[in-house]
């Protein structure tokens, strides 16, 4: 691994970590798509500020871009306040326009703006290490690494300083308001940080795939844990893994780094979607199956207890009669009986099913406390 490769991965990891930090609260707040809008319109801010300053390295670019992000949010809420359009449409009416203006400006001033549409869509990670930050001739490393690092630090400070407020307003805005925290203020500050972060994401992976960094890692993490600090840590880990893995996938197949990062994020999400121990499809299906048998076992012991020692016992407790009485398929009934025997809940005596002490205990438990 060359220094160049290492630097690219470093920049990608820094960007992914920053996005995962602020993205977690976007997902919790159910405003994930606002990050799509913000990351699209950041382009307009960058282009306009560049045309004003004529300097692609001006910090004003970052500020302008972040302001455009906030402008987007403001416009969306303004549109919502008119009551003329609903939220989904409001988002979809604002960002395509601002983004289109950005693209038109780029084409218009193509000779001045060293930004082409490819870079807008794909990011320019591969070229990032060539842009060095030099102070007095001393090479301090890639400029982008410093930018991403600064953005990550902003995210960290924001998260640490307002962790309690962020958590409360995300989970229970009503309670937050009652307790005297302003959910609107926290929300606005958060979107401000998202806008700044979007500038970094834009640099790393371009306009469309910024969402892949903001949303996919936190969504994956939310499938894996219920504990917010763990979710945040997992989100950062998934983001970083997508960044590093994406780089190597792109390197191996000679393809787009940004695209590979997003794809790998999708793979991680798919794995969690299927295999998460608590929420994954596989675990759910398994749990569903198990619950079906457990329910059947409880039904069986209840049935036996009800008729135990009564005149009808001979008819009701015969294994062969179960399908008729409990309306089970014969094969299903046979399996339930076998499972019950294996679990030591029932025994066969003269062709009748008889509860063992354990079976009777379970049956009483179900009688008294229900099937749960």
């Amino acid at each position, binding site marked *: 691994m060359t220094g160049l490769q290492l630097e690219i991965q470093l920049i990608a990891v820094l960007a992914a970590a920053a996005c995962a930090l602020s993205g977690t609260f976007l*997902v919790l707040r159910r405003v994930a798509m606002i990050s799509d809008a913000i990351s699209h319109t950041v382009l307009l801010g960058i282009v306009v500020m560049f045309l004003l300053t004529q300097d692609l390295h001006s910090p004003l670019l970052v500020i302008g871009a972040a302001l455009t992000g906030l402008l987007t949010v403001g416009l969306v809420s303004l549109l919502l306040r008119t009551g003329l359009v*609903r939220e989904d449409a409001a988002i979809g009416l604002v960002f*395509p326009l601002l*983004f*289109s203006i950005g693209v038109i400006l780029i084409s218009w001033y193509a000779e001045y703006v060293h930004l082409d549409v490819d870079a807008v869509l794909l990011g320019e990670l591969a070229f990032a290490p060539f842009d060095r930050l030099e102070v007095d001739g001393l090479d301090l490393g890639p400029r982008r690494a410093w930018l991403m690092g600064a953005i990550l630090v902003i995210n960290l400070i924001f998260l640490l300083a307002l962790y309690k407020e962020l958590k409360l307003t995300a989970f229970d805005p009503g309670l937050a308001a009652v307790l005297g925290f302003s959910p609107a203020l926290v929300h606005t500050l958060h979107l401000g940080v998202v806008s700044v972060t979007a500038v970094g994401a834009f640099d790393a992976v371009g306009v469309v795939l910024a969402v892949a960094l903001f949303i996919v890692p936190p969504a994956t993490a939310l499938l894996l844990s219920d504990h917010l600090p763990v979710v945040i840590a997992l989100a950062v880990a998934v983001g970083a893994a997508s960044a590093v893995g994406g780089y190597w996938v792109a390197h191996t197949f000679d393809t787009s780094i940004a*695209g*590979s990062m997003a794809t790998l994020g999708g793979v991680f999400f798919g794995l969690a979607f299927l295999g998460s121990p608590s929420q994954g499809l596989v675990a*759910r299906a398994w749990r569903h199956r198990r619950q079906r048998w457990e329910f059947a076992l409880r039904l069986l012991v209840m049935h036996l207890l009800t008729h135990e020692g009564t005149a009808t016992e001979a008819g009701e407790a015969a294994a062969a009669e179960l399908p008729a009485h409990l309306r089970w398929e014969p094969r299903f009934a046979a399996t339930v009986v076998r499972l019950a025997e294996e679990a030591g809940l029932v025994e066969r005596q003269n062709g009748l099913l008889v509860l063992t002490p354990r079976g009777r205990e379970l049956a009483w438990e179900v009688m008294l406390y229900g099937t749960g």
Partner: protein
Amino acid sequence: MGPLDLMVLLLSDHTVRTVAAGAVLMGITSGVLGVYALLRRQSLLGDAMSHAALPGLALAFLVTRSKESAFLLLGAAFAAWVGALGVIAIPNYTRLKPDAALGIVLSVFFGFGLVVLTVIQRLPTAAQAGLDKFLFGQAATILQRDVLTMAVIAALALLVVILGWKEFKLLSFDPAFAAVQGFPVRLLDVALTSLVILAILAGLQTVGVVLMSAMLIAPAAAARQWTDRLSTMVLLAAVFGAAAGLGGVLLSSLGDSLPTGPTIVVCASLLVYGSLLFAPHRGLVWRRLVAGRRQRAVRALQVLAQLYWLGSQHGDPFYPHPAGALRALAGSGVQASLRELAARNWVRRLPDGRVALTPEGLAAVSDFLQQAAPDTPVPPSSESKPEAGP
């Protein structure tokens, strides 16, 4: 040369005419289908689906190595379909909400599409040139054959909408009622979502996958402001979509450096924001005007009531008073109100500057007071009313 002449001149060019025809067809399709997406609050689903179409498009090309649009469109349609399924499945099976599902599908599919696209670009064959134009659309590459494809798509979409008019209407406004009535809601839902895919296919070449959502949202949102009738809204959305397409193509044909897709989107956005401002009844300007007129009417009535009340203090409702006395009671803006009242002949101005009720004014104010407070003979007045004697 007027804009109309310019349009005719531009349209005399064969290429521009072809491209314009394609854009107009795209506008009609997406306008009509966007109406249903908008009414069902699925505007952003179109966004996710159009992005999701990219990998299908690219994979179709990679497999067939052919730019035959039928293959590409099939691939795109399939991928968009899978994307839509994902958007529906994720909130169904996990704790994640629809907004996160949209973001995940949109970005992951698009990212994978870019991966495949980059692979294609590195292929030694030259045939792949232009495929990346599906990102932003490359209207200039539209051929007559493509226009034909778009016409077929548009016709298909319109046909389905007309055939299923009643059912789609019911589904869009009251899906629960539709289900109770025994309509196959699930099937209709799938049909409508699949129709949106048709619109996306129509827009691939003209505006591209990135901006396609705007064409699904903007014409429909603009049309919504002008009418409360579904049929009118659908027609208007088609007209707006077509106008945005035509306008975008013509504008971008004026200069080399104006990309068609974004220009079409800007045109569509202008239509929306114009409608939001100026549409009758719903538009912001209209609402402001109506509110202003109402406020003025209320103020005028207030002044009239003050005049009547002052007069009744003198035992003569027609007793003239200086305008200054009214100002003290009714606040600023009295002169404007008096002008309005004088114009209606409810108040007459005496040469010495005093004002008095006319018989018509008296009738109007008693009418008003009867309606406002049937039991009180003394007119209620605003804040700074001096204490009236018993």
